[in-house]
């Protein structure tokens, strides 16, 4: 609704971002921005379930890992083109989402969150212990989705459509009937049912794209770093990061996760140059800051400043 005058900044942003490899030649910086993009995608995807529908999932890494492993193992064992593996990963993630969702969405509040953690951990342990099939805890090399030279640029251009697609999907959800139904579920499931919403179905419908996008992000990410292993693609930390990025930037907003990813990735990177091993402290403190001072996320600062009518309030306005 109020996107019409706001199209300009969006277009400028995407054009500038997409063109980056053409004018930014520093490999290190390109990698940094690449990570910002992938984590923004992660945050946007998580947002469908966590921000809009209000279901705090801390098990999204399961889909990230499925994407990464599906691509790697199908290339390695069946000889597929890795891009086909990416598609396979998305499909498997969708199936897994249906399974996990049908179990976990029966629970509410902290029970739901814990069950998502449990589900992701079960997957991690199973993969970690299947040495013959999955290379177990050691992991293995992930195939390259692009061929050298200029890998940094190519991966960058590969990630942009993913970001663009996720962004478009988020924009649609935000002002659609579906998006409102999700928000109703978040605010009060009983009331939602009283206005004809079927929470069970809608939660799953939100989880499907969420899982699939996360899986593709997992594939691209692991391909870029040429590695899959339980510690890198099935680590609960990634689940927390996805949630943190969305919350930090502004849950249930389209730009929030992008802002959140920028703030988080740059902050963590900044600290790393001075102290090693600080990313946990950074995440932890940012989480605390968000909860205590900025429950609406960074974007709420801008909303207040520019007096943009808030389309939705902060998560859980029952404060």
């Amino acid at each position, binding site marked *: 609704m109020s996107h019409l005058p706001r199209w300009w900044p969006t277009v400028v942003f995407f054009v500038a971002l997409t063109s980056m490899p053409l004018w930014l030649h520093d490999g290190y910086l390109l990698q940094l921005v690449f990570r910002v993009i992938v984590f923004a995608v992660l945050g946007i995807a998580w947002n469908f379930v966590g921000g809009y529908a209000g279901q705090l999932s801390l098990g999204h890494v399961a889909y990230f890992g499925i994407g990464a492993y599906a691509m790697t193992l199908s290339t390695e064992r069946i000889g597929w083109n890795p891009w086909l593996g990416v598609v396979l990963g998305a499909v498997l993630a969708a199936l897994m989402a249906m399974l996990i969702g049908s179990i976990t969405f029966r629970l509410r509040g902290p*029970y739901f969150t814990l069950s998502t953690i449990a589900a992701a951990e079960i997957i991690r342990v199973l993969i970690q212990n299947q040495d013959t099939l999955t290379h177990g805890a050691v992991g293995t090399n992930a195939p390259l989705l692009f061929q050298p030279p200029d890998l940094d640029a190519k991966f960058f251009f590969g990630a942009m459509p993913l970001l663009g697609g996720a962004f478009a999907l988020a924009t649609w959800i935000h002002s659609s009937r579906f998006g409102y139904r999700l928000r109703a579920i978040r605010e009060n499931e009983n009331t939602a049912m009283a206005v004809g919403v079927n929470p069970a179905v809608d939660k799953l419908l939100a989880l499907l794209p969420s899982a699939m996008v996360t899986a593709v992000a997992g594939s691209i990410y692991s391909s870029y770093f040429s590695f899959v292993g339980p510690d890198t693609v099935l680590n609960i930390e990634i689940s927390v990061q996805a949630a943190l990025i969305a919350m930090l930037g502004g849950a249930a907003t389209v730009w929030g996760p992008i802002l959140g990813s920028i703030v988080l990735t740059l902050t963590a990177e900044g600290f790393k140059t001075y102290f090693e091993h600080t990313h946990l402290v950074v995440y932890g403190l940012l989480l605390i800051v968000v909860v205590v001072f900025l429950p609406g996320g960074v974007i709420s600062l801008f909303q207040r400043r520019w007096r943009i009518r808030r389309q939705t309030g902060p998560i859980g306005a029952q404060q």
Partner: protein
Amino acid sequence: MSFVQAFLNGLLVGGVYALIASGMALIFGVMRLVNFAHGAFLMLGTYLSYYGWTLLALNPYFAFPLWGAVLFLLAVGIYWLLVRRVMGANDFLQILLTEGISLTLIGLAQLAFGADYRQINLPVANRITGFGPLHFSVGYILSFAVSLALVIALRQFLGHTEMGRAIRAVAQNRTVAPLMGIRVERVSAITFGLGIACAGVAGALLLPIFWTNPTVGGPYTLKSFVIVVLGGMGSVQGAALGGLLLGVAEQFTAYTWADRYTEVVNFVIFLLVLLLRPQGLFGGKA
């Protein structure tokens, strides 16, 4: 390794689990707080124990009250500073805050202590004792004994002291309690302190028989949740029994299947209980 041995091993380690989970049950039952930082405090307990022994020659089996007191004070401080702001807020925020505290503590531990594994060598803990075909490490027995004693002491405290009664009153009805002259904020702070102290002391007792590193707490947070759900949310008694049960279930899994699947057992039990019998094995409020 026989069936009986596995069962008894399970009970021994289950005793320590009971202590950890009792702390979690207390916090959840009284404050309705979902504490994702439980394991991180356990980890702090292990490090207090570690440095207490290596630097000050304080035997964990004697010094644990000291570590408990330190963590109690730390927890009360964190309650006043942070936790009290999300009391009554929705659990989304509670989970995120406690997770944030957890990550911060783990991160600080990594910076302060380094990420490597640490172990201590306590001669008494390493001794093996037993009868017949069964043998146990003395360390396990000591940790079990102290944990059990503390769980019983906790129950006595809750049942027979004025503060204990106040705590139970708040657990039953948070809105009415102030009308009876109970200072709910104060009770919450003390409950949080007690619950964390349980986790920390359990950590101190685990050190002689295991090892530690900054990330050791994570699985214990989840384990505590599993146990608390198993025993019936908020029931300290249920948590104690649930802890023993989980310990046994884990050892049986290791015995019949493989060590590395014990983690999965945790989660499977968790999901099964939540889906089939959400009020836990020992009833209580759903």
